[in-house]
């Protein structure tokens, strides 16, 4: 229903307004998924930084607390948390490099972006596994 006092020109303008689409109704292509994971890992890292800063503070406070941190990092649970933060960092790093390359015009085509998303996943999975091997 268009209100009677709305002029025709105003209707035309309003019709062109962007609509907020219901994102849950879409099937996401791979580049969209890697983009969302990039955002999610960004939030995880923002929280994870608190843990990393706390570890840094303890490790630099004294020799005793350094050794305590070292011992603590040998525990499975703590190591797993660190691996989680490191995984987030590695993914965010790789996806970020892809972002910067795309800013320079590399892989901006439809095919290129799908390939870029695949490369992002493969490279970050390899790095995450290497990080796990390094930690354990």
């Amino acid at each position: 229903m268009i209100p009677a006092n709305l002029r025709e020109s105003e209707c035309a303008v309003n019709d062109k307004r962007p609509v907020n689409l219901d994102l849950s109704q879409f099937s996401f292509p791979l580049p969209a998924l890697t983009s969302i994971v990039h955002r999610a890992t960004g939030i995880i890292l923002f929280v994870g930084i608190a843990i990393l800063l706390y570890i840094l503070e303890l490790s630099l406070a004294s020799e005793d607390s350094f050794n305590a941190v070292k011992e603590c990092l040998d525990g499975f649970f703590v190591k797993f948390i660190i691996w989680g933060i490191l995984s987030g960092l590695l993914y965010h790093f790789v996806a970020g490099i892809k972002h910067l390359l795309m800013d320079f015009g590399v892989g901006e085509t439809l095919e290129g972006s799908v390939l870029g998303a695949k490369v992002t996943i493969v490279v970050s999975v390899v790095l995450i596994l290497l990080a796990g091997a390094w930690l354990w």
Partner: protein
Amino acid sequence: MVTNVTSLGRSGLYDWMIQRVTAVVLAAYSVFLLGFLVLNPDLNFAQWSEFFNSTCVRIFSLLALFSLGAHAWVGLWTISTDYLKALGLRFLFQAICGLVTFIYVVWGIQILWGL
């Protein structure tokens, strides 16, 4: 031009540039710090505190810390304006992010220089 009072650089273009420049700093620092840890598997306290006592490492760390603050703010601001449509909720989220970022920066400075 679309401007938003809560955007860091007062315009999307500045935010875009801040995001990229700080990303490069953070990428370089991540490689630097992880590289040091990988190359020193049997790290002891003396090596570790000597590493963070060097002025170069402290300056690079502080640069990374400031970059983190700006990078996180632009990223979280983008996420909040994309997904949080309710003004009050969005403001609350941004306020918490801003406060936490401030705490990280001050805390980080204290860790680096307050020893």
